[in-house]
């Protein structure tokens, strides 16, 4: 059973994240005469939603910590990488007959579905353990550039943070691509109805 708070949190985050990626692209990849959307609006949205994102991330930590929901990720994480490797091997080489008890091996498409579900678990954990905190931290530095060092390596001091934020944001965009794609296979139902 997936609790309601988590589902609400998840879809809010999904929306925020999508808009943050789009506005992040506008902030970086505009020309003097063309921007995908009004640049000022993109900037405001990015700042406001970025703060909302950071707050919601802390909310997630608190609630999952208090309710004990975090143990789910602990369970999912156990042996996750070795299982991914094992399942990957099955998809490529087929399931060893011995392990299958002599019965029919499952079709390759089922195996790859199993693999993708494991990858999805990995991505989910990655998103909350690595991506979200890094996005919030690098984003908050950019939000208060006046506290960044005056210069770093002879250049205006904000650049390392901007590059870091860009890369974490970019990984976030890649995460979103795979996470949302795998969702079309692994099923939305649990994240909507709760089971």
């Amino acid at each position: 059973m997936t609790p309601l708070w988590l589902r609400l949190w998840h879809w809010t985050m999904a929306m925020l994240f999508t808009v943050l990626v789009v506005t992040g692209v506008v902030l970086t990849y505009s020309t003097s005469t063309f921007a995908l959307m009004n640049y000022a609006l993109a900037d405001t949205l990015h700042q406001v939603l970025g703060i909302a994102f950071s707050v919601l991330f802390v909310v997630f930590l608190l609630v999952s910590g208090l309710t004990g929901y975090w143990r789910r990720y602990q369970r999912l994480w156990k042996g996750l990488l070795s299982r991914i490797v094992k399942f990957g091997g099955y998809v490529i080489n087929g399931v060893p007959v011995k392990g299958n008890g002599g019965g029919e091996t499952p079709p390759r498409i089922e195996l790859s579905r199993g693999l993708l579900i494991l990858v999805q678990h990995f991505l989910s954990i990655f998103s909350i353990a690595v991506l979200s905190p890094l996005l919030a931290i690098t984003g908050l530095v950019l939000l208060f550039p006046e506290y960044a060092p005056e210069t770093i390596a002879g250049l205006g001091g904000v650049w390392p943070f901007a590059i870091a934020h860009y890369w974490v944001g970019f990984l976030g965009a890649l995460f979103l691509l795979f996470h949302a794609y795998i969702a079309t296979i692994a099923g939305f139902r649990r994240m909507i109805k709760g089971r």
Partner: protein
Amino acid sequence: MQPLLSGRRARVSYSSGNLAGRALARCSAVSFGCVLRLAAFAMVMLAAALMPGGQAEAAGQADFMKRMRCLACHVGESQHRLDGKEHISKSSTIDMPQFENADHGKMLCADCHSKGFTNFPHRNMKTETCMDCHPRKEAKDAEADKDYEFERINREFEATVHFTEYQHAKERCCGTAVGKVAAEAGAGAAANRKMRETGANQRFTCEHCHEPHYFKATAHIKDPKLILKNDNGPCLHCHMDGSSVALKDPAKPNLLAAHAYLPYADMHLKGTRCIDCHTSVTPTVAHDLPKGMKADQGCNTCHSIDSIVVRRLYRYVDNASATQAGFHNAALMKDGYVMGANRQRWTDIAAYLLLSMGLVLVVAHGGWRVFARKRK
């Protein structure tokens, strides 16, 4: 260039001229003041005559003598200030080292103060204004002036609030302009006084911002930081917080508040010129002033890979748009990171590649799924 006055002697004569000038400025017309002035002038002429002529060329000497006539009264720490006090700016003194360092520094006073200034008290004066000489006609000068399109600048300027509103705002005027209205004022000392008073009726002119004695074109300043200071000076003189010239918008308590809608308003105010937003961004030297929020011409005019800042404030930096260590427009980054303008080439390429690979994976996998389902 060869300095007009140099060494100790120069300083002495500056200060004596200055003293005499200041004292006399307050006396009205002829009488005792005039005698003193002439005495001061004679002293300076004597000093000049005694100066060793070795280095100075004959022509330089002649110019020197011509200027001396004026400088006897008008040399000294600049009083050419726009501080809104009545009369004061008409008794102006000129800071010679600064004048000589400026773009008009080789000119003679009489080149611009062309009529009525040779005798004291000055009568029926006429001072040339910027547009009387610019755009210049002679071959080399004409070439130098071409880029600026003075006619267009003048047209743009005359459509701005500075020009259209200012002449009615008597109490606000600092009266320093050397506009035509004053130059045509009547004769004599009385007229002289009247001229000062009608200073308040003068129009806002080029000279309000481009102080002709000290003006230096950005092309000759080059360094963006100095250009920034130089170009914001005239604007801030009237518009800064607490300016004695009450021109700031009373609805907004200060500059920062007026720009509060900008993200990081303080950094924008510190790092850019007022005119970078408050004139149309497309031409290089625009003089229109889009009113109010129209100054906002889209953040991405600067926050972009082809940032216009490179073509304006950083125009005289060699290769301002060049890429260094992968950073585009690297020259900007020396003064501060500009989002959107300082993209990183290698980072960009890596991101494009990774994203394309990701998309290919997803599309290939999706295609395979559809294909496999159909076969079933």
